[in-house]
């Protein structure tokens, strides 16, 4: 495979019929597939065959989809370029000298190159929207709790959601329809609440979010009367080449009857720092399970328990994963917890509040998905901080647990530019509808 979009190419047939009976799907390699190798792009899990399917995989099979392989990714989802995979970098099908974005770069590249009709990725800080933007396809990061994370190998639980990638908004929404909805195996999905809470004085939420969704039907592109807020902070930092395409797309939406207004979200300036502190802290805890005893790379060391683990983990993890585990351990360690982790949680609350207030006045928020055009392969690996800062526009959405979509807005220098639309909690229909107007 010249693009290296897949780590494992293996067909997994679904049921005979269903909503996706004619569709092929690439599944990111951090999503468990029963009996089919699932590596998370890491040497640590090379050869690991999960004994069960992730809930989203069961739903794909039930819908008749044919899974064509496990898509390449940044190791454990840690990266913005899909260059940190142990199995080599994926190339961007639009320009093979450039990165496809990450961490779901294999998923987006597979769709953009026509190697799969649809793909599932996971988005912890922009990992679906970034590669969608760089490869010129559509990616949706659902509201936290809409899609089950059961069977997703955890990197940062409180931030990540599985979501769809497709060539069109309608196709992405149709895949979301298949995977969304409550799951008894994941307590963070929205379940039925039959009891009313008298203390609260009103009936509790009784909706099953996503259970009978019709997101595909929402892809009408009718933005007449829609108010679109543009956070100035998310445009200021972007390259001119990106901003020009973004503003043309906004003009087009205005011509279709939308009202575009400027809004300010002062908290987002802190989102990258807050995101990385929280994600690294959760990663340091989640990745503690990889000791090579129950599964994964053991190195075959004998002798002292701790020393054997430290050697196996040193061999199994790549540089970016080690970096995040160590920084996360540091941020949670005695003396630094209040300075980093606690402050990051404060920032997270502030970001949520900022978004809530913005949605009092606007229906959706729009920004460039990524502040730059896709970089050349190898360009960003040496400077991790620079790579982290590229996530300025996507990370606030994960901190606030909101839904967002990246839709192609046009090209600059022959390279795709993505437009991000953010909606209120469980406002998937709204962003799907608005995104369809961008692609018209």
């Amino acid at each position, binding site marked *: 495979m010249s693009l290296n979009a897949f780590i494992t190419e293996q067909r997994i047939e679904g049921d005979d019929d269903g909503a996706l009976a004619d569709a092929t799907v690439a599944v990111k390699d951090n999503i468990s597939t029963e009996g089919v190798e699932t590596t998370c792009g890491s040497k640590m899990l090379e*050869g690991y*065959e999960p*004994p*069960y399917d992730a809930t989203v995989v069961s739903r794909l099979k039930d819908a008749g989809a044919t899974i064509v392989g496990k898509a390449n990714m940044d190791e454990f989802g840690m990266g913005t370029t899909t260059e940190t995979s142990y199995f080599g970098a994926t190339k961007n099908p639009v320009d093979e000298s450039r990165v496809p974005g990450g961490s779901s770069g294999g998923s987006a590249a597979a769709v953009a190159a026509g190697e799969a009709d649809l793909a599932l990725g996971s988005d912890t800080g922009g990992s679906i929207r970034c590669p969608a933007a760089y490869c010129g396809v559509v990616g949706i990061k659902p509201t936290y709790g809409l899609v089950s994370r059961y069977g997703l190998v955890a990197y940062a639980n409180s931030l990540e959601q599985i979501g769809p990638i497709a060539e069109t908004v309608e196709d992405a929404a149709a895949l979301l329809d298949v995977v969304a909805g409550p799951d*008894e195996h994941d*307590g963070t999905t929205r379940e039925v*609440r039959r009891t009313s809470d008298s203390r609260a004085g009103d009936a*509790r939420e009784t909706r099953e979010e996503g259970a009978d969704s019709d997101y595909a039907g929402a892809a009408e592109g009718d933005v007449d009367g829609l108010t679109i807020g543009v956070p100035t902070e998310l445009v200021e930092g972007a390259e001119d080449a990106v901003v020009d395409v973004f503003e043309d797309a906004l003009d087009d939406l205005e011509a279709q009857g939308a009202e575009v207004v400027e809004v300010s979200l002062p908290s987002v*300036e*802190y989102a990258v*720092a*807050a995101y*990385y*502190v929280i994600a690294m802290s959760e990663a*340091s805890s989640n990745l*503690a399970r990889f*000791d*090579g*005893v*129950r*599964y*994964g790379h*053991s190195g*075959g*060391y*004998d*002798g*002292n*328990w*701790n020393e*054997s*683990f*430290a050697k196996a*983990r*040193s061999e199994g*993890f790549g*540089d970016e994963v*080690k*970096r995040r585990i*160590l*920084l996360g*351990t*540091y*941020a949670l*360690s005695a003396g*630094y917890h209040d*300075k*980093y982790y606690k*402050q*990051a949680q*404060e*920032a997270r*609350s*502030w970001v*949520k*509040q900022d978004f809530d207030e913005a949605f009092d006045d606007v229906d959706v928020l729009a920004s460039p998905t990524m502040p730059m055009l896709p970089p050349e392969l190898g360009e960003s690996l040496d400077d*991790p*901080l620079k790579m*982290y*800062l590229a996530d300025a526009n996507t990370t606030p959405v994960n901190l606030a647990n909101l839904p967002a979509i990246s839709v192609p807005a046009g090209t600059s220098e022959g390279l795709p530019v993505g437009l991000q639309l953010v909606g209120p909690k469980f406002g998937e229909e709204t962003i799907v509808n608005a995104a369809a107007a961008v692609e018209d």
Partner: protein
Amino acid sequence: MPDSVDAEEVRHVADLARVDLDDDEVDEFVDQFGDILAHFEALEDVPEVEAEPDLVNVMRADEVEECLSQADALANADETEDGRFKGPNVS
């Protein structure tokens, strides 16, 4: 302090995280962590926000349910013995 993480601190954290580092890796991380932690320092300017999350109990009743068989659970282990995982010596 965090602006200038030294090699000893990086080794200490690596030890806590059970990740062996060679000397080159330690040197590289000392440089990079200085930059990254300096960026994280901005969080000190974040104001306190009053947030009252809407919490719901999601725990199910503690009832025995179907789960992985012992053979499935052990299937990916390098070494097993008498139906159990076998790891390195504790000391």
